[in-house]
Structure formats: C-alpha cells, structure tokens
C-alpha cells in the first residue's frame, strides 16, 4: 500500500463529513428519522400514504444540492470512469443489495455506526470488504 498524497484531501474530507453528520443530525432531531438514502428512496417505490412528501423532499434536496453549491463556488465535474454496461450492472447490485441489506453508506455507515448498532457495524464491514475486493479484482487482477 502506498498513500496517494496528491489525491488525499483530509481537511475537505473531515469538513464535508461533519456537514454530512449535521444533515443526519437535523433529520434525526427534527424529522425523527434515520438519514439512510437507500431507505428514503426505496420507500418511494412502495408508497405509503402520508409518507411520500418528506421522502420526495429529501431526495429533491440531494439532487438539488449541486445547484446550491454552484451559487457559492465553482463545481468540479465528477470523474465517472465506469462504462455504461458496468454502470447498469453496478446500479442493479446497489439497488437490490441496499434494500436487502436495509441500508447503504449513509444509513448503516454513518447513522448506524453513530448509534452503535451491531447490524450496521456488520453491514458496513461487509460492504467495505466487498468494495475492497471488487476494486482489487477489477484493477489488479483483470485490469493488470
């Protein structure tokens, strides 16, 4: 392992992470809910009366965030290297996996670990490990 010092941005990462934590805290303390993005989004596919507006609003806030950010400072485009076929496969896996596993990086990784949930610790360890192995295979076994 070698650390990529040029790519490593510890202060932006910590600050951005704290902002994510603040958002999760707001959603918890005001709305009384876990800010788990896969759960909020997935719940829209099986709509329950009275449960649609806040879900749609949270997702709209996420999608609209770049617009707000661009009002203040310049937005750099994300670098998406995956091809279209890979994106479709990855999207399907993320969609199915997060719903069976009841959460993603936000619900399990941020909120679940913050509330010391054993389920979320297991889920986070599992998806992190799977992510590490997948990238290892893709970049160093297949891509080598």
């Amino acid at each position, binding site marked *: *392992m*070698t*650390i*990529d010092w040029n*790519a490593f*941005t510890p202060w932006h*990462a*910590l600050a*951005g*992470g*704290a*902002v*994510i*934590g603040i958002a*999760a805290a707001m959603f918890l303390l005001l709305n009384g809910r876990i800010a788990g993005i896969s759960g909020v*989004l*997935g719940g829209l596919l099986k709509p329950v009366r009275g449960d649609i507006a806040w879900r749609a*609003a949270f*997702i709209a806030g*996420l*999608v609209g*965030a*770049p617009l707000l950010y661009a009002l203040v400072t310049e937005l750099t485009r*994300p*670098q*998406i*290297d995956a091809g*279209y076929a890979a*994106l*479709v496969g*990855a*999207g*399907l896996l*993320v*969609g*199915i*996996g*997060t*719903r069976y*596993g*009841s959460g*993603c990086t*936000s619900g*399990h990784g*941020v*909120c679940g*670990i*913050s509330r010391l*949930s*054993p*389920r979320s610790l*297991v889920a986070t360890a599992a*998806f*992190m490990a*799977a*992510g*590490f192995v997948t*990238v290892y295979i*893709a*970049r160093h076994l297949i891509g080598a």
Partner: protein
Amino acid sequence: MAALFALLAGAVFGIGLIVSGMANPAKVLGFLDLAGDWDPSLAFVMAGAIGVGVLAFAFARRRTVSLLGLKMRMPTNTALDRRLLGGSLLFGIGWGIAGFCPGPALVALGMGEQKALVFVAAMLLGMGLFELFEMRSKPLPNARA
C-alpha cells in the same frame, strides 16, 4: 413542515457529499483501491460524519418525539442474518464496480451527469425488483389462513 425540513436535510447532506469529494466516483474508488495508490479521504469523511452523528444520536436516545413533535422512528430489527450480510455484500460489489453509492449518485445526477442518470435508473430498477421479490415471497395478508 416535515417535508420542508427533509428538503433542507437532503440539501445539506448533498453539500457535505460535494465538499468531502465523495460525489466523485474516482475519489471513492481511490479509497477502495488498497493495493494501488491509496486515497484515505473516505475514512476521514466517515470520521467527520460519525463524530457529529454520535453526539446527535446520544442526545436523541431518550426522546420519543422529535423537536418538530414527530414520532422518533428508529430501526427495531436486530437480526444479524443472511439478508443483511448478503445484501450488504451485493451492495459493496456494485459500489466497487462504479464507485457510486446511492447518495453520491443522486448528487451527480443533480450535476447533470448522464452516466449518473444511467446508474440511478438501474439502481431504481434494482430497488423495484426487490419490492417485486418481496411481494412474491410473502403471501398477501388476507390470503393467510
């Protein structure tokens, strides 16, 4: 009122993702590539978010209603089962392929990225398939004896 605050929370969450660099799949993959040139940033994002989160959840622990007077809805499932593990592993594989998890994909969609649109469409299809499998595997309540 709840929807307004949800909109705000979503926007703040998205801004945090942009500031942290996590809306950029290349940066996420840089973290997941332990054997290559490793970018530890994602671990610092988690540390920042959990640092704030721990305080919020500790404060909320004994509350039964939120500051807006809404019922606190915390997860009640504690099972460490195959669904949790299998689902999380599938999610991790997808995450490792594209570098997108649900939040950053939605933010990148808001940046007008066509590839993010393709990913989000596939992700919604996957979530829809989950609902379909769930309906098939569970008999309707009134069909039960």
